[in-house]
């Protein structure tokens, strides 16, 4: 497995751990009614699980295992891979911070962090689609040479 894919998969595992912790908090809060701020973390929990864990794991494994883009660049442009990694994780992190803070009665201006988070996550999805689309090919399609397709 190449290093970038390891970053994706290990970070996915960290988000899974975070999701498990938030899920535990939600369950304890449900049982003992500790704070409405904890109850407000329900959507955060879903997104930790589905974006931080599931989507990121899929992204990492797909970038690693899908048919090679070219012989020279089997995983496509790795700089775009890093853009995907940073925008996905920063977007999710901003969501966790802003949603948690707003739930605890933070200033309403924090809503702009949710907008930034949304933009970053949409950018991440678009970059993944751009990176993986040319790698969806049959056996008949041999890996293209980088110099005849697009620049790295």
């Amino acid at each position: 497995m190449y290093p970038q894919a390891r970053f994706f998969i290990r970070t996915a595992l960290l988000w899974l751990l975070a999701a498990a912790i938030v899920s535990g908090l939600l369950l304890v809060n449900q049982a003992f009614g500790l704070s409405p701020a904890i109850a407000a973390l329900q959507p955060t929990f879903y997104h930790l699980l589905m974006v931080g864990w599931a989507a990121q794991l899929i992204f990492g494994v797909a970038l690693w295992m899908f048919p090679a883009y070219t012989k020279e660049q089997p995983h496509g442009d790795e700089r775009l891979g890093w853009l995907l990694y940073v925008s996905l994780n920063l977007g999710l992190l901003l969501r966790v911070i802003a949603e948690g803070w707003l739930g605890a009665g933070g200033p309403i201006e924090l809503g702009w962090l949710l907008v930034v988070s949304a933009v970053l996550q949409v950018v991440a999805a678009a970059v993944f689609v751009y990176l993986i689309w040319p790698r969806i090919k049959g056996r008949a399609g041999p890996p293209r040479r980088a110099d005849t397709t697009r620049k790295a």
Partner: protein
Amino acid sequence: MPPLGRLMVRTALFWLLFGFTLGGLVLANKGLGWWPFLWRFRASHAHILLVGWTVQFSIGVAFWILPRLTGGSRGREGLVRLGYVALNGGVALAFLYDLMVASAEPAVMRFLPLAGGLLYVAALALFISQLWPRVLPLPEVALSSSPGSNSSDSGSSP
């Protein structure tokens, strides 16, 4: 990757982009509260990303990468194609429901989730029926498939 696997993975990527964009709009609205009507798309955003993206992508990859049956077959592709149509029809109906919930006839709105749910069940039954026999132990794979057909971890297309 076989043509049907490519179709499923590409359609899953379409739903990924659409679902993230829709979710992004809902999230931005949560932050700013400028477009309250967007809130209604929360449920279909979840359907699009859970079923249209995650489930479809994983089934598309499973259809490509699971060991083949005797003679190199991937099962009855017509049934998998039918499952593909049913799955995407169900996701489209989930989105249509949220799109029309404020304006359409109540009778129609009762029909849409029912039809969507039945399409999901049909799709998953078809996929499971075709993937189940391909979950084979290694010696059977070696005996039944053509050379090189189960190379699943090298980044090449089996």
